[in-house]
């Protein structure tokens, strides 16, 4: 998933922009141009093939596409995405304000921990919630024992999907809002307070309007995640587009309808992406005047600190403590029952291997794209860079489906092999690496490269010996980010993996499909463990960056 603080196009290095060399497309070195064109072609390939495949549909399938059900699916998906993004904002904005602007006890720890639900894959969260709140779940059993309650309202359907997706996507809004809030000039708020306006009116009339672009951008990310999500809606049986595509793919011999529905899904997701990018542009402008080196004074909450603390604890309890506690409980039970965890060794290894190779490939190909876009700025190189961003708006299920079609029909040698799976990861996740490397490159003064060339080093040598080492923080961050997302990835892995190859995510998925929560617990916990280290490194990095930018 997109990760705003690192992937922001052009958010840093304002001073250097005047020095950009404007060169024509003709002077682009071939070793940068060729891989960039390859990336562009790979990104476009699944789109073209899905269009081709859907167009092949005979009369009957076209009738199916334009039947009522497709419209129903679009409406249901939109309803869920809307409800989730609003709820995510309602959770995240108070949380960000309390942890950054008020004297909430333990606010530093809460600020760091508030982002951590991102480490829990949403389908893992869904499994924990189904185990806890589903029929015959922990809560129901507990209520029956103590209160004699026979049944509780069903978690399946809209309610469960909404609850879980809100709890696991609010960090997207939180990240956006807290980054903006940290960079916001507190003197405006202070002035309002000084002129006699109360804390709440100040928040609603001064702070909130300034936060609006980043709240909306975060909400769109949360909506985009919801629309692309496949695990939660399938586990909770909510009839959204991705679930319908998966059911169609699994239950029908004619896969043209699945292809057509995937196109509908892509159009949906891409329009959210375009809206988000437009908003991010305006959010940046709103931040232009924010260079004041003053630490904001924390608002004294007084008696209100207790309900505020309660609120923060409830949010973190539901999004972090509950899923981990439920999984631990199931894990202990499986352990006591004497379950064999031996198979998880190879699954863990495969997960690390795919994450490592995926990160390596995507970062290696993102580098030329980013260098072209920053150092050989032209309409052409920017177009290639923009094109790679399309991956953000291509749901994994749609990409996976397209590569299954392409592999089975035209590339049997690569069908169900690791290389094709890596290509699918590349298409989906490369924008994260391009964004990270790009912002790193923007911070390098081009004069350093000029000096290197002036001292007799070739362009190629300068790239290798000056640019890449200087951009290494961005390259490393991009690689870690991709590692993190590949490790959690489910639908593409499920469809494209080699026969017999299990990863932690497929182990979780298979176990949850047979309602064997005990067996899902161990791979789910391992998955969280594998993600925690890179996530903490990344979060530390973006937090130090944020602090330095406030201090400057």
């Amino acid at each position: 998933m997109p990760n705003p603080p690192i992937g922001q196009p052009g958010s840093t290095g304002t001073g250097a922009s005047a020095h950009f060399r404007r060169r024509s497309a003709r002077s682009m070195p071939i070793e940068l141009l060729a891989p960039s064109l390859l990336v562009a072609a790979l990104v476009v390939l699944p789109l073209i093939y899905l269009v081709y495949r859907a167009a092949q549909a005979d009369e009957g399938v076209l009738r199916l596409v334009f039947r009522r059900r497709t419209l129903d699916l679009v409406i249901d998906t939109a309803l869920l995405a809307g409800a989730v993004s609003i709820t995510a904002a309602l959770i995240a904005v108070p949380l960000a304000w309390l942890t950054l602007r008020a004297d909430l006890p333990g606010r530093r720890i809460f600020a760091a921990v508030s982002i951590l639900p991102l480490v829990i894959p949403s389908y893992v969260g869904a499994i924990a919630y189904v185990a806890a709140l589903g029929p015959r779940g922990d809560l129901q059993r507990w209520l029956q024992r103590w209160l004699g309650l026979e049944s509780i309202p069903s978690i399946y359907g809209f309610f469960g999907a909404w609850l879980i997706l809100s709890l696991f996507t609010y960090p997207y809004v939180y990240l956006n809002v807290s980054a903006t809030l940290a960079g916001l000039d507190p003197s405006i708020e202070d002035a309002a307070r000084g002129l006699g306006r109360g804390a709440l009116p100040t928040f609603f009339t001064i702070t909130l309007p300034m936060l609006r672009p980043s709240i909306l951008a975060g909400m769109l990310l949360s909506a985009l995640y919801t629309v692309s999500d496949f695990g939660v809606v399938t586990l909770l049986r909510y009839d959204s587009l991705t679930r319908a595509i998966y059911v169609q793919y699994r239950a029908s011999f004619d896969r043209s309808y699945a292809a057509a529905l995937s196109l509908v899904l892509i159009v949906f997701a891409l329009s959210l992406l375009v809206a988000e990018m437009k908003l991010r542009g305006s959010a940046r402008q709103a931040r232009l005047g924010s260079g004041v080196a003053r630490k904001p004074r924390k608002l004294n909450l007084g008696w209100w600190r207790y309900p505020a603390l309660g609120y923060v604890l409830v949010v973190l309890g539901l999004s972090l403590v509950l899923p981990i506690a439920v999984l631990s409980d199931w894990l202990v039970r499986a352990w006591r029952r004497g379950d064999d965890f031996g198979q998880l060794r190879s699954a863990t290894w495969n997960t690390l291997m795919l994450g490592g190779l995926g990160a390596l490939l995507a970062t290696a190909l993102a580098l030329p794209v980013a260098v072209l876009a920053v150092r050989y700025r032209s309409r052409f190189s920017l177009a290639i860079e923009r094109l790679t961003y399309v991956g953000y708006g291509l749901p994994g299920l749609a990409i996976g489906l397209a590569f299954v079609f392409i592999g089975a029909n035209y590339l049997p040698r690569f069908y169900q092999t690791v290389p094709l799976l890596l290509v699918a990861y590349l298409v989906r996740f490369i924008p994260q690496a391009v964004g990270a490397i790009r912002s790193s490159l923007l911070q390098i003064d081009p004069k350093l490269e000029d000096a290197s060339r002036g001292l007799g080093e070739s362009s190629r040598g300068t790239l290798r010996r000056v640019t890449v080492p200087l951009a290494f923080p961005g390259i490393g961050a991009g690689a870690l980010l991709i590692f993190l997302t590949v490790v959690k990835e489910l639908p593409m892995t499920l469809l494209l993996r080699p026969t017999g190859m299990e990863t932690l995510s497929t182990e979780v998925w298979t176990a949850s499909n047979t309602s064997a929560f005990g067996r899902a617990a161990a791979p789910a916990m391992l998955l969280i463990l594998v993600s925690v280290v890179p996530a903490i490194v990344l979060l530390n990095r973006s937090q130090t960056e944020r602090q330095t930018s406030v201090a400057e």
Partner: protein
Amino acid sequence: MWKLADRATNGTSTPAAGIALDRRRLLAAAGAGAGALAVGRLGALAQATPAATAASGSITVYSGRSEDLVAPVLAMFTEATGIAVEARYGNTAEMAAAILEEGKNSPADVYYAQDAGALGAIEAAGLFASLPAETLDIVDPRFRSANGKWVGVTGRARVLVYNTDELTEADMPATVQELTGDAWSGKVGWAPTNGSFQAFVTAMRVTDGEDATREWLQGMIDNGTIVFEGNGDIVRAVAAGEIATGLVNNYYIYEIAAEEGTELPVANHFFEGGNIGSLVNVSGLGILKTSANSEGALALANYLLGEDAQTYFAENTFEYPMLAGVPTAPGLPALAELDSPDIDLSNLADLEGTLTLLAEVGLV
């Protein structure tokens, strides 16, 4: 392939243990680790081509039956014959669709399906090789392809499972058609994406016709029939008293009782008078024409119809064995005693038509 995994696992502890390292070193360690993986892995990828797998005496099975049921018996097969098996698990229709999509490029040697209908569809597409008479003759002609393209491995009957705390056998309907009546409103569970359910719908289309089947499906939907993901979920829900009854296969109540380790308040009801609701279907397999190792594939077919595997199925999956002389699980009415509808399983090939119908009424 996993030997390689064992050798290289040591390398992965470096990045995990490196929390205390500074970021630059951590990244460098991660990068070096990934590089080492890449080199080792590419060697393994070259072996993964279809030709290489055939030479090393292994077969690829596309299984429409779940890993829980199939993996142990495949391990027994490898133990007995030395032939390695790579299994790809999915649901029955998904795996059939994959084979149809792949056509001549299919990496599968064997398709092992949960119902005869999907086997019939692959046969109709001309993708199965003919099986030798010795293999076919093990199985009753009722439970194999008339053209010798696939054989049944185990038998299963469709039943209406019910909660014995709420209902008695006397309350149960005589035919599956009665379930659209008011008495059963909101009380029945079904699993429309399940292969066995879909085969039953195909059978109903064959015996009662397209219109009557659509009417019945619509009647069931209007009657508030509750959708589940699978048969196991239905039986668990019936046992918990969430719903009164559900349309499933005969063996689930035994499986789930064994899993939970307790007696469950559930029983199977067989419909009467050869009603289509009590269809007896088979799980079975066929060998792909394009198989690169048809000998190994045939060895699997013969092993699954042998005494060891048939006993395993009877005792562990509570299905009906196809090999004469292997006893059925205790508590199960004998296959011959079942008042099952008279239908040629080869006629259940039109799963496609069933799926279109299910899509039309909005169930898939």
